[in-house]
């Protein structure tokens, strides 16, 4: 009987450990809210949320104080467009959930849903989060359909190794009690509105845009209940229609990828025809040429600001000043398109700043702007009261390539600054520094 009680207590303690109250003091705090930048700010984390951001150093009782003097504090960065959790190794390495081929469930691709495909144990999660990225939009990067399906937003806590527990069930995490790393499913829909989209539509934009209009008109007009009993002759499958209805309603933003100015003008015209749709422009190499119109249509962009080569005839206007010019015209700019190296988004933003984007806007491109695009501005991307306590303490300016995340909090808990890569590093640094090394596979560094 006693044994049973002990076991029950142990289970209770390990199944959910409340995040402790933490006060991060003394740092230069970029709140990404109307509070702006606070020199010597105090950030209070409680119950996994931001409790307060203060300009003075007063810390209430019951908080563990972490000194961030001389350091920089920001909200955790958001991977604006990735395939994190969907791919471990891209090439010749088994199923990659970030790509999909022909299957009967969908006719236009809208129905696919990556929320079921996320692997929180992927090594990319730990590798990415210890560089200050705490959540990410993730979706497929290749589909044999018009649409790339529904993307999700995930946090990067992954499956935690619970260090406070001596229990054998070491991998128990809060997400296993019915929760997942998914912060938001059905978070956005992707479509290529440039050359690749034209390829998917018979090889011409003349087909692509007629198709896109038709697909959405159909979703608007179709009944809310397309049951299997009733016959259906649509371009979309029944499931596609149900999902596209959410896009039409403006609940699920439509990420439209296009590079050349003429295509981007078509994106703007599309938004004009389908005004309820929440359109986001993706990649947008020549977006600077249509910047005013994008601002007028209230279309934000997700771009790679380092892309400055005419990789094709859709990209003749590529320039390093794309981000700066878009911002100047009033367009909201998010930065960060990659998967294995989404951790380099801060460097990308830094290069946008080096080419004219204001520094604080560079930080916003990694935090508040993607949060807003994804409809999660109250949850992530800023240090506002009530938001998730995803916070990073940096050694210095996060956009400098020589600076790094030193402490990362996800949901109010400090993550262990460890990944498969740091373990490989430690194993081989230790081995190289010894004269008579033990065989490598016996080398472990704790």
């Amino acid at each position: 009987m006693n044994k049973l009680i002990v076991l029950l207590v142990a289970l209770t303690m390990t199944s959910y450990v409340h995040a402790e109250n933490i006060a991060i003091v003394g740092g230069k705090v970029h709140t990404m809210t109307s509070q702006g930048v606070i020199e010597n700010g105090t950030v209070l984390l409680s119950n996994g949320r931001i409790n307060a951001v203060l300009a003075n150093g007063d810390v209430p009782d019951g908080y563990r104080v972490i000194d961030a003097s001389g350091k920089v504090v920001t909200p955790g960065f958001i991977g604006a467009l990735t395939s994190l959790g969907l791919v471990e190794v891209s090439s010749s390495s088994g199923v990659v959930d970030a790509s999909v081929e022909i299957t009967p469930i969908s006719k236009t691709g809208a129905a696919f849903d990556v929320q079921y495909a996320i692997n929180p144990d992927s090594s990319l999660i730990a590798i990415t989060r210890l560089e200050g990225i705490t959540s990410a939009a993730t979706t497929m990067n290749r589909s044999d359909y018009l649409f790339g399906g529904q993307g999700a937003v995930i946090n990067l806590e992954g499956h935690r190794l619970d260090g406070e527990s001596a229990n054998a069930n070491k991998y128990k995490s809060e997400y296993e009690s019915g929760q997942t790393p998914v912060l938001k499913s059905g978070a956005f829909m992707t479509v290529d509105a440039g050359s690749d989209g034209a390829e998917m539509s018979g090889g011409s934009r003349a087909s692509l845009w007629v198709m896109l209009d038709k697909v959405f008109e159909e979703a608007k007009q179709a009944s809310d209940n397309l049951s299997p009993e009733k016959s259906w002759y649509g371009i979309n499958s029944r499931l596609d229609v149900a999902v596209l209805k959410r896009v039409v309603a403006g609940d699920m933003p439509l990420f439209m990828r296009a590079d050349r100015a003429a295509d981007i003008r078509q994106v703007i015209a599309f938004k004009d025809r389908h005004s309820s749709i929440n359109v986001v422009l993706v990649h947008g190499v020549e977006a600077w040429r249509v910047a005013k119109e994008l601002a007028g249509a209230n279309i934000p962009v997700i771009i790679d600001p380092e892309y400055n080569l005419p990789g094709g005839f859709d990209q003749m206007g590529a320039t390093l000043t794309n981000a700066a010019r878009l911002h100047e015209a009033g367009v909201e700019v998010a930065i960060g398109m990659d998967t294995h190296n989404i951790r380099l988004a801060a460097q990308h933003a830094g290069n946008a700043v080096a080419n004219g984007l204001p520094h604080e806007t560079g930080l916003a491109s990694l935090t508040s702007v993607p949060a807003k695009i994804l409809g999660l501005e109250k949850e992530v991307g800023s240090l506002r009261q009530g938001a998730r306590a995803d916070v990073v303490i940096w050694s210095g300016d996060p956009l400098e390539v020589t600076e790094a995340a030193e402490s990362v909090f996800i949901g109010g808990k400090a993550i262990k600054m460890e990944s498969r890569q740091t373990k490989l590093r430690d194993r081989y640094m230790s081995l190289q520094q010894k004269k008579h090394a033990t065989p490598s596979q016996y080398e472990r560094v704790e």
Partner: protein
Amino acid sequence: MKLTPTKLTLLLACTMSLLTAGCSKQADNDSAKAPKVTIDPNPYPSTYSPIEGQPTLITNVTILDGVGNRIENGSIYFADGKIQALAESGQTLEVPDETAIIDGTGKWVTPGIIDNHSHLGVYPSPSTRSHSDGNEMTNPVTAQVWAEHSVWPQDPGFGRALAGGVTSLQILPGSANLFGGRSVVLKNVPNRTMQDMKFPDAPYGMKMACGENPKRVYGQKGGPMTRMGNVAGYRQAWSDAQDYMRKWDKYETDYEAGKDAKAPKRDLKLETLAGVLNGDIRVHMHCYRADEMTVMMDVMQEFDYQIGTFHHAVEAYKIADKLKENDVCSAMWADWWGFKMEAYDGIRENIPAVHAAGACAIVHSDSDLGIQRLNQEAAKAWSDGKRAGLDIPMKDAWTWLSANPAKSLGIFDKTGSLEKGKQADVVLWNDNPFSTYAKAEHVYVDGGLAYSLSDSTSWPVSDFELGQVGEGDNK
């Protein structure tokens, strides 16, 4: 003495040139015999001519000379295309009146960046299929192809790389084949023809590839389809090259003995392989995994040649000691990883770990975007090393960008450092180049101002971009 086609040429070049006055006597003497067959090692000679420069003195500037020295508030003077002098703070350099004098306060000077792994021109922008000229994927051994015959000098990427401070670069064939063909080294002064850019007197390199790529490309096309198949392929090719060299040796010996010797038929593939075995051509080998690199160093011992550089070398940190022992450089990215299995064990500290072990470390791009900011790649590696306890001064870290790639390419006697007498390939940075925000303000190639940040009319615009939406990145 090993006699091989390329060495033969150097020894007996004049016998081919029957019209040359100095050789005609010898030709007369041997008139009874058929003329000796020799091979021109340089049939596509460089026609590079530098941009005309002005004597230039940069003062009050932080100098990293590229060979381990850092001078604060120093001066550098170059003229006639060459580095003339460096001076410490407080020293004055005597310069002619017509010298351009630049106050470098708050700025930095480094040797020009040398990228020893680029596919500019062979995989140019725009990346259309009609421009895809980097991989002769028709046979696993294509040592006979030369990248210079694919280089499209109108690739806008050259000009963009120049803006990033790249003054020389090696263009390599791709990595589909066990032997991908010869590389070419270029001066990064975009011009009409490949020959106009060709680095004078740079040795040739040869691209080889380990691992996944040859397996993937040829697995269903007659092989190799395994790593052991790859190694069998290298060994057989080296063996064939040895046989070919013996044939030329015999011809050489018989000819010298006055016999009526018939020259072997030229085999362009084996000729290049022979060039490697006799040390004229440098091996640049795409290889990711530590175990594979180590096998390749054994193959190198078996056939008595030298691998100059492993490229990508994502696992070099695991065998840095062995790389040092075998005198093989590693050309690496700062942080690329995971796009295929052989890149799965990439770590951020690869470059500093190789350096710290005393082996030769190089930062390379393999990318038309990455080549534009190799200084940032070095900066990342430098700081990642520092955080891991490998505290390498910036003045030594710059060897990854200039001196070591120059050594890898066999041009360190000409460029790659700011030493008196070397080619004046120089970058003036507007800030510490280990910062994201630093930009190349002036890029000099052979003392000529090839790029000036403040003067957009100095930025090269390729024919391809002329009259298009953007003319270069100057919009």
